[in-house]
């Protein structure tokens, strides 16, 4: 009896762990999209997420976490393609401006000004974006 109880308990704990990991993974899956959608975070021409205003600490922490991962990917690709990290990052920004910033979401060009994407109008890209 007590052995059976232990088995049931173990199964329960296992299930909870799996569910927890799945939820955490699902949240990680669209962390940057959710941050952009919050209106407190936008895409910058330097290839990183930025805070549009004074955001709560929880948002800041998420932005930092995403940016650290981005930096790692940029560094990796830059080494692979014999390019500068800034060049990979800027190229990524061009692509994110094109495909990931939804209408009403914020973006920041090299002039440093935060702007909101106006409806379905494409974001005016810096000339180097090609």
């Amino acid at each position, binding site marked *: 009896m007590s052995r059976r109880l232990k088995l049931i308990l173990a199964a329960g704990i296992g299930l909870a762990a799996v569910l927890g990991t799945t939820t955490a993974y699902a949240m990680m899956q669209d*962390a*940057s999209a959710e941050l952009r959608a919050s209106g407190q975070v936008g895409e910058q*021409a330097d290839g990183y997420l930025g805070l549009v205003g*004074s955001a709560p600490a929880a948002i800041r922490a998420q932005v930092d976490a995403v940016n650290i991962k981005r930096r790692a990917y940029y560094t990796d690709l830059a080494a692979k393609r014999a390019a500068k990290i800034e060049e990979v990052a800027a190229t990524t920004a*061009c692509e*994110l401006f094109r495909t*990931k910033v939804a209408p009403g979401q914020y973006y920041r060009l*090299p002039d440093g000004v935060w702007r909101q994407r106006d409806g379905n109008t494409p974001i005016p890209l810096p000339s180097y974006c090609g």
Partner: protein
Amino acid sequence: MKPAMLTRLRASATQGAMRRANFLLAAPLILSSAGCVQLSAPEKPIEINLNINIRQEVVVRLQQDVRDLIKENPGVF
């Protein structure tokens, strides 16, 4: 007697409604003053560092790799 009681009841009902109305009038004031507190300026200006010179040919060369990178890491980009 009856009309007088009704009038009294009505009067008290109106007072109750006014009290409620007063509260409703005050609510936006309280809320707006709470909003004002949050509208303070950010603590420090956020820096954007793009004063390096990006050449278009480099961007074109990296474009496909970057597209793959974005597609493979949906949570980060």
